[in-house]
C-alpha cells in the first residue's frame, strides 16, 4: 500500500480483478492546525489536479442570509491583501465608505414599492462614484490572471448544500505557486468589489432559476419536500437575501467555516509527498485553527402524506419527484445507488425500457440517488412525450415502482448493475480530475475512505436488500411531486 504505481502494476496483472484490489492508495496527513491533506500519486503526465474542500455549504446558512456560502465562494476570487491590489492600505478607507453607502441603498431598495426613488438614485450615484474611485486601486482579477498565465486548467469553484470546493489543474512544476495562492487567500482574502459581485449572483439566479424551467421546478421541489431542514432553500439563495446580504455577514461566515481544521486539501497527480509536505507545511502551517462550527441540528420530521406543487412556466411539461432518504452514513445508501442504476442507467434499465422504449410515453426517466451529508432526497426526473400527459406518465411510473417493491429483482439483472458500476468505477480512475473529485466528494460528505469500500459494499447487495429498501422509501406518503405546467389562461 505504499504507492499508487505499485497498485497499478499489481492490478493490471490480474486476469480478473477482485473488488478488493480496486483501492486508491491515498496517503493522508494532517498539519498541527488541523488541515487535512490527501495525496494520490500518478505520474502519467507532468500535471496534477488540486482541490481545497471546505466542509460548509448552504445547509450551514439560516433564513436571511441564504446564498451566503455561494456568495462567499465568489468573493474568494477577489484577491487578498497582496493579490488584486495596488495598495491595500489606501483601499481600506474606500471600502468602508462603499459599505456606508451600499448598506442603506440595499435597505431602501428592499422596501419595494414603498422605496424612496430619489434616495435610491442619490445613493446609487454616490456608490458608482466610490466604486469608480476604488477601481483605480484594484488589479483586476489578478488571481485568475496569475493562474491562467501559469497554465492552470479548469480553474473554478463550486458550492453545494453540503460543501464548497475550489479546484484547478496545474503543470506539476508549479505546485509552489498553488500553495502560495491558496494559502494566501485562506489567510487574508479581501472582499473588494463586493456589491457588484452580489449583482453578478442575482444574474446567476435569474439565469439558473427564474428563467430556467428545470431550475424553477427544482427549487420548488426542495422547498416543498423539506419543512424544517435547511435543504429547503436553494444553494444560490432567495433573491431577497442575495440582494440584502452585507459584506460583514459574508466575512463572519468565512471566519467560522474557512479555518484549516474545516478544510481538506486533495492533490492527485505528478506529486511526491516527501517533497511537497514540507512546502505545504511552510505555506499553510501558520494559519490558525478555529473552534469547530456547529453541525445542523434540525432533523426533518417524517413526511405524512404526499405533497404536490405546480410550477407555472411557459415550457412543455416535466415532473420531478423526491422521496426522503437517509444520509450517506446509512448503509441503505449502497442499495439506493444500485436502485438508481437499475432503474435508469442505460437502455436496459427498468424505467427507460418501460416508459421510453415500450410504452413510449416518456422521452426521459432518470433516477438520482446522490448521497447527501444529511437525510436528503432520492430524485426522479420524468419527461412526458406529447400527447401523453404528466399524469399518464406518473401512473405508469407508479406501476413500475410497485413492481420494484413486490417482485424480487432477478440475479442476472442485479449482476448487470454491479458489473456496470464496477466498470464505471474503473473509468473514474482515468483522470486526475475525476479522482480528485471523487476523493473530495466523499471526504466532504463523510470520509474519503468510503470510496475504497464502495465496490465491495455494492457487491454484497442481494435481491432481498433491493426489495426491502425500495419498499421502505418509495412510498407515496414519503414523496413530493413537482410539476411544470403552462401558465393559467394558456400561452402568452
Amino acid at each position, binding site marked *: 500500500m505504499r504507492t499508487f504505481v505499485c497498485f*497499478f502494476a499489481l*492490478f*493490471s496483472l490480474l*486476469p480478473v*480483478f477482485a473488488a478488493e484490489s480496486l483501492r486508491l492508495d491515498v496517503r*493522508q*496527513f494532517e*498539519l*498541527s492546525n488541523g488541515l487535512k491533506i490527501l495525496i494520490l500519486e500518478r505520474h*502519467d*503526465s*507532468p*500535471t496534477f489536479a488540486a482541490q481545497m474542500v471546505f466542509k460548509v455549504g448552504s445547509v450551514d446558512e439560516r433564513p436571511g442570509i441564504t446564498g451566503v456560502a455561494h456568495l462567499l465562494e465568489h468573493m474568494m476570487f477577489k484577491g487578498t491583501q*497582496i493579490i488584486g491590489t495596488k495598495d491595500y492600505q489606501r483601499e481600506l478607507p474606500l471600502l468602508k465608505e462603499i459599505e456606508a453607502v451600499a448598506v442603506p441603498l440595499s435597505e431602501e431598495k428592499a422596501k419595494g414599492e414603498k422605496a424612496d426613488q430619489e434616495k435610491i438614485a442619490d445613493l446609487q450615484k454616490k456608490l458608482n462614484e466610490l466604486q469608480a474611485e476604488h477601481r483605480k486601486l484594484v488589479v*483586476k482579477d489578478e488571481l*485568475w*490572471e496569475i493562474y*491562467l*498565465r*501559469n*497554465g492552470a*486548467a479548469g*480553474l473554478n469553484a463550486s458550492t453545494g448544500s453540503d460543501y464548497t470546493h475550489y479546484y484547478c*489543474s496545474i*503543470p506539476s*512544476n*508549479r505546485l*509552489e505557486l498553488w500553495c502560495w*495562492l491558496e494559502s494566501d487567500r485562506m489567510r487574508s482574502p479581501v472582499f473588494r*468589489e463586493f456589491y*457588484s459581485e452580489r*449583482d*453578478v*449572483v*442575482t444574474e446567476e439566479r*435569474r439565469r439558473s432559476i427564474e*428563467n430556467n424551467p428545470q431550475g424553477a421546478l427544482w427549487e420548488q421541489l426542495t422547498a416543498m419536500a423539506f419543512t424544517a431542514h435547511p435543504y429547503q432553500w436553494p444553494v444560490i439563495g432567495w433573491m431577497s437575501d442575495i440582494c440584502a446580504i452585507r459584506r460583514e455577514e459574508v466575512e463572519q461566515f468565512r471566519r467560522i467555516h474557512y479555518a484549516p481544521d474545516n478544510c481538506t486539501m486533495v492533490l492527485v497527480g505528478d506529486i511526491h509527498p516527501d517533497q511537497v509536505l*514540507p512546502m505545504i*507545511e511552510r505555506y499553510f*502551517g*501558520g494559519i490558525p485553527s478555529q473552534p469547530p462550527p456547529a453541525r445542523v441540528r434540525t432533523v426533518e420530521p417524517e413526511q405524512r402524506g404526499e405533497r404536490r406543487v405546480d410550477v407555472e412556466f411557459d*415550457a412543455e411539461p416535466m415532473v420531478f419527484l423526491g422521496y426522503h432518504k437517509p444520509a450517506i452514513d446509512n448503509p441503505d445508501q449502497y442499495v439506493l445507488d444500485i436502485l438508481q442504476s437499475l432503474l435508469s442507467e*442505460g*437502455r*436496459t434499465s427498468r424505467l427507460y425500457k418501460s416508459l421510453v*422504449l415500450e410504452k*413510449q410515453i416518456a*422521452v426521459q426517466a432518470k433516477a438520482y440517488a446522490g448521497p447527501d451529508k444529511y437525510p436528503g432526497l432520492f430524485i426522479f426526473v420524468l419527461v412526458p*412525450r*406529447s400527447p401523453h400527459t404528466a399524469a399518464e406518465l406518473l401512473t405508469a411510473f407508479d406501476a413500475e415502482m410497485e413492481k420494484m417493491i413486490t417482485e424480487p429483482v432477478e440475479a*442476472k439483472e442485479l449482476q*448487470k448493475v454491479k*458489473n456496470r458500476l*464496477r*466498470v464505471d468505477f*474503473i473509468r473514474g*480512475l*482515468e*483522470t*486526475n480530475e475525476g479522482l480528485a473529485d471523487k476523493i473530495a466528494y466523499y471526504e466532504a460528505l463523510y470520509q474519503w475512505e468510503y470510496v475504497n469500500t464502495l465496490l465491495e459494499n455494492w457487491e454484497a447487495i442481494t435481491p432481498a436488500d433491493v426489495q426491502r429498501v425500495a419498499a421502505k422509501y418509495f412510498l407515496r406518503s414519503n414523496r413530493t411531486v413537482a410539476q411544470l405546467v403552462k401558465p393559467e389562461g394558456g400561452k402568452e
Partner: protein
Amino acid sequence: MMKRSVLSRLLFVCVIPSFVVFAADLPEHPRDLTYPELSFTMPDVSRTALDNGLLIYFREDHNLPVLDFYAIIRVGAIYDPLDKMGLASLTGEVMRTGGTREQTGEQIDEILEFIGASVESSIEQERGIARMGCLSKDLDTVLPIFAEILMQPEFRQEKIDLCKKEVLESIRRRNDQPGDIVEREFQRIVYGDHPYARPVEGEANTVVAIQRQDLIDFHRRYYVPNNIILGIAGDFDTTEMSARLKDKFGSWERRDVPFPDLPDLPDESVPEGGVFYFPKDLTQSNIRMGHLGIRRTDEDYIPVRIMNFILGGGSFSSRMMSGVRSNEGLAYSVYSQFEPKRDRGLFIAHAETKSESTLRAITLMKNEIRRICEEPVSEQELSTAKDSFLNQFVFHFTTTRNIVEQRVELEYEGLPEDYLDTFCDKVSKVTRDDILRVAKKWLHPDSLRIVIVGNAENFDGALSDLGAVHEMTIRDYAAEVDSALKP
C-alpha cells in the same frame, strides 16, 4: 467529524512534525517564485491504414484494463436533402438502436450492458461519430458489434418510428430554454440559406417525411472505409489488434463518396448588421452578437484565438468579463468565441443580463469589439494570453484516450501533421501587430448581428439606438409538430 474515535483507530493519520519556518521565509509575491523545468515529451501516436483506406491511429496504454475506439466519419447534417432535414441525425442514431442483421438493438443492449461496455453512433452537423468502450478482456464480444453497426446496420422500422417520435418531442420543446432560442436564431440569421443555418435534428415536417430507405441509402453513401478515421487507445496488443482489424474491416469495400456541393456562404464582404428582437416574457435578456468567423485551417486561426482570449475568451482575464461582469455586475456569463467549422464558422459574443441593463451590456460589449480593432492590446494582455496557451499545452496530453482522439480530430480537420509540434512556436511568435491585424480582419464592430430574446418593456432604452431593429417572433414549434402529424 462523525465517529471520530473509530476513525482515528482505523486510519493512519500522520500529523507532520512542525517545521520551524517563519512567514518571512515565504516569497512575498508569486512573481518571486521560480519553477523547475517541466519535463515533458510529446507522446507518440502510431498511424497506419488498411488497404481499403481505413485510417487508424493507435496507442497502447496498459495502466487500466480498458480500451476505447473512436471513429470520425466524413458525413453530416449539412448533406441532408432540404425536404428531409434530420436524415443524417436519424441515421446516426438508428444505426445503433436499430441493431444489426443478426441482432436487434435490444439484444445488443443486453450484451453490452451486462459487461459494462458501450457502442454509440451519432451524426452531427459536420461529422459522424462512432465510439466503443469496454474492458479489454471483452474485446472479442464488443468489436464485432461495433463493426457490424458501422458496416451493416439493419435500421429496423420500429426504431426509426420511435426515434422520429423522440425527435418530434425534442422539436416541440425547442422554446423551453431561452438560451436555446437565441443560439438557434443567431445561427439562422447569420447563415441564411446555407445548411449551417439548419437544425441538425431537422424540422417537424421534414422529419415526418423521412423513410427507412432514405436511412439505408444515406448510410450506404457515406459509411465506407476510405471515409473513416479510427482511433484506438488503451489496453491492447498492437499485433493482435492489427489482425483483428483486418479480420473485421479488411473485406469492407472502398468506394468513392459523391459529396453533394454545398452552397456558398452569404457574401460578407460588407455584412449587414442589425438588431433582431424576439419578445418573450423573461426577467433576463439572452443576447448573442456576432457574424461569420474563421475556418479551422486558416493560417490566422492561432492569432485569432489569442486575440479572442483577450477580447472575451480568456475568462476573467478577458476584457468583456472585466467590463461587463467584474466592474458592473451586469452578467454572470459573458464571453466571446470563434466557433470553427470546415467552412467559415461563427464569431459570437454571449451575455445574459437583467432586462433593465440590456442595452448597457450590449454597448459595453460592442465597445470592446471596437476597441480591439482600433488600438493595439497591451504587452501585459498579450503575454498573459500567450503564457496561458503555452503553459496549458501539456494538458492536451493527459490521458491516452485524449491523445489519440486529438490526432483523429486533427487529421479530420485537415490540419498539418506537425500541427502540435509547431503550435507553441506559432503562439510564441504572435505580436501585438498580429493581434491588431487579425482583429481588423475578422471582427466587424459596425455590422454585428445582435439577437436578443427578452422583454423590451423593461429595457434600459430604445433598441433602435443599437441599429435597425427587426421585430421577430418565436416560432410555435408545438403547433408545427401537431400540424406535421396530422394525416
